[in-house]
């Protein structure tokens, strides 16, 4: 059990680092959601099914949905206003 726990913990941290490292916003959001999902597995192992459900449904599921709605809105406005998200992110990449 502990080994399994350790492995999932490692995965949790890896997904979190992925969210940090990737350049693409969408992937980052998804990785953030995945962190939550892995964490909810940890919660189950720690005998916290209520928390696991909540984390999966809210912390990981709905949160990611809301992120996507927000991103969608930004992208849509992008087309409306002809703002260039790619330009912005490129610049920030250069600066990094």
């Amino acid at each position: 059990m502990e080994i399994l726990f350790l492995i999932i913990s490692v995965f949790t941290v890896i997904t979190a680092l992925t969210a940090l490292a990737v350049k693409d916003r969408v992937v980052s959001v998804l990785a953030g959601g995945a962190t939550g999902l892995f964490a909810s597995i940890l919660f189950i192992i720690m005998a916290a099914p209520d928390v696991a459900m909540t984390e999966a449904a809210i912390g990981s599921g709905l949160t990611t949905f809301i992120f996507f709605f927000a991103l969608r809105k930004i992208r849509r406005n992008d087309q409306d206003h002809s703002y260039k998200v790619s330009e912005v992110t490129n610049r920030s990449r250069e600066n990094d």
Partner: protein
Amino acid sequence: MIKKAFTFLMLGGLGAMLLNFILSFRERTALPEVAAHYIEKGPAELGSANIVTSVVVTYRGLDTLGEVTILFAAAAVVGLLIHLNRNENAVRREGSEILKTASALLFPLILMFGAYVFLNGHLSPGGGFQGGAIIASAVVLTVLASPNRKIGHTVLSVIESISGLAYVALGAAGALLVANGFLDNRIIPLGEFGTLFSAGLIPIIYTLIGLKVGSELSSVVISLNGETIEEDDQ
């Protein structure tokens, strides 16, 4: 770069604080007094099998009321900002035909599942928040499938308000009628332990929370999708 190095250093300092805790951390072998009371006396006192539920709904009911309030406030802020910056004529891309059909099919099923989760909150894992989130995800699905369809935003807000009012009123009834205390679940009989209709007010309150959270989260999603309640009125 210097800034990053400095940030790293400072997070290192924070990490050292956390490490300090980790090093002194020993897994508990016995429950603290209060928790032990919840486990040992809780079922008899409140009639709920799921102790987490009895803690959430009754023992620490004020936290939960606060939590519902936070969601309410968050939904209000989302609504406010969208209301202030409404963009009337945005056209959203329609979802695919498969998604539409699937959502039409799944919508009532997911709703029922959500209801199941919050109605059984006192017996099994789950409860108002999880159930509410599930309901909201049904709404998300519908919004994804047909973004231009008007969702009954008014209906949502009425559900939200009424369930909120009922929650507060039931809580106050605990203080008023039985004079035990705010949010006491024992103003109606506890019923038989382990059955659906037991644990006094807990299932009722969890249902209200479920409805409220569900409708709040749904309106957050709908608002973020770009609709305001006023649009719905026209």
